[in-house]
């Protein structure tokens, strides 16, 4: 005891623990320090307590670090497994829906038969890529999607012409116009079977840098503001809103009414080496855009991945022919799609 007013704390477990865990205020701490300076047994108790705490902290850190190293080395994490199982489940869902769609379509639209009662070539759900094997004259019906891709020089038989006309007059509402896939987290979105598009669809792959709302002075800021104001905040998958979802936002561009957008995200660390220098502006989102068979896939490379629930709520608006606005994670990102050859597509 040094000043006669302080009690020995060498056996006070609570006080010793509070000291080493930093739970005492400054005066309490100073009081213990003062006492320990003149009380060898108390100082020894305090030192032992500090050693135990230091050793426990060290063991905890090293154990966690060893776990982390092991996981990194094996490339495994619970998320990794979720991702794998998520992708597998999505593929199964796509395959199942595709088979169902084909079966339903086939029962509703029996394939055309020739005079001998044989099924016409290509009428049994051939996909667009197989079209080259179809006869030069005649029709290829693609993917059971009620779509008629007319081959050069061919004229469809009357029943199918009528069917095609009916289709033009009253386009089927697609409830899955927007599809979000969270590639990195596996459970971020839902993929559905998609009707194959005609051969006239433009296929392209290029990079675009999305402008995040608020980037002052950026060329797309005004358009983004306008589009952002128009964009409705609604869930991506909302059955009750499905019809409204499909109502074409681009009234002057009927050719892309049925276009679908697939939204993916990947970490910025996965950017290809030749794109790394483009990822340094926090208001820009380097994004790979792939247009294939009527589907536009936007793969955003983000420094920090968006929560899967946010990905589910993401949606795409198309304020103009050459641009889309992605609303995700509370941000609006404007993309120029370089439609119509405004910019030379950049191959990977």
């Amino acid at each position, binding site marked *: 005891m040094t000043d006669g007013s302080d009690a020995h704390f060498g056996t006070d477990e609570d006080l010793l623990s509070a000291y080493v865990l930093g739970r005492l205020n400054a005066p309490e701490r100073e009081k213990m320090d003062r006492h320990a300076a003149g009380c060898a047994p108390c100082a020894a108790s305090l030192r032992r307590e500090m050693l135990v705490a230091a050793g426990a902290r060290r*063991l*905890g*850190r090293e154990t*966690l670090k060893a776990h982390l190293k092991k996981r990194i080395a094996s490339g495994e994490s619970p998320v990794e497994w979720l991702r794998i199982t998520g992708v597998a489940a999505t593929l199964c869902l796509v395959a199942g829906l595709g088979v169902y769609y084909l079966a339903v379509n086939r029962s509703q639209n029996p394939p055309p038969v020739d005079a001998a009662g044989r099924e016409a070539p290509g009428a049994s759900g051939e996909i667009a890529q197989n079209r080259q094997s179809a006869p030069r004259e005649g029709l290829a019906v693609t993917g059971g999607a009620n779509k008629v891709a007319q081959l050069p020089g061919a004229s469809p038989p009357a029943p199918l012409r009528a069917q095609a006309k009916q289709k033009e007059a009253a386009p089927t509402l697609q409830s899955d116009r927007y599809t979000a896939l969270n590639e990195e987290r596996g459970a971020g979105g839902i993929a559905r079977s998609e009707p194959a598009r005609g051969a006239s669809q433009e296929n392209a792959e290029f990079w675009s840098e999305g402008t995040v709302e608020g980037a002052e002075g950026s060329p797309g800021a005004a358009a983004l503001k306008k589009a952002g104001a128009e964009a409705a905040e609604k869930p991506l998958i909302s059955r009750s809103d499905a019809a409204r979802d499909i109502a074409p936002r681009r009234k002057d561009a009927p050719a892309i009414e049925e276009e679908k957008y697939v939204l993916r995200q990947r970490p910025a660390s996965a950017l290809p080496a030749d794109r790394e220098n483009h990822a340094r502006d*926090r208001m820009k*989102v380097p994004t790979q855009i792939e247009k294939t068979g009527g589907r536009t896939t936007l793969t955003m490379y983000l420094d*920090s991945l*968006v*929560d899967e629930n*946010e990905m589910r709520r993401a949606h795409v608006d198309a304020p103009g022919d050459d641009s889309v606005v992605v609303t995700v994670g509370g941000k609006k990102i404007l993309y120029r799609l370089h439609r119509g050859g405004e910019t030379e597509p950049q191959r990977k």
Partner: protein
Amino acid sequence: MGRVTSLFAGNDAAILDRIRKGDEGALVDLYRENRRPVRALILRNSGTEDDADDMLQEALVTLWERVRTGKFRHEAGLGTFVYATARNIWLRRLARARREVPGEMTDSPSDDASPLDAMIEEEESAVVRSALERLGEPCRKLLLLFYWEEKSMESIAAALGMANADTVKSKKYQCKKALEALIRERMPGND
């Protein structure tokens, strides 16, 4: 060239939530996201790729500790925290190794302990660590929950299936005595 900062704070919240729940996979995700900038920093400052990985892992473990003990203040993005922590740990290590610090990293590390004190503490904590490993599983768990994760007696009782906080307190005392006995075997002067 500026570092890319997080665009989406929402993802940080999800990661923090996973850490609070004890999901170590969250650290693996953070490791992947932050590997590139931390590696660039360490390589620019006399380090190797192994050093960079080590610093990043240390930073992630520090984040885990702070979050789990309720001491983490979410004032900046997680990426910023991880980057700054890795940088500070590397600075301390450079200073300790008495390497020359390049111009870009001019902040002096705050390292109060003298090199000799630090060495003694390092050796002693290694002895305690080793003794803890030899301690039985229930005691090791209890002491780690109390001293490392800084859990309350009530939380520890729930986590270890003990009756109540008093039972934990009593068990902790016994565990400490057992640990001190193991330590005395290695460090006879430490009574």
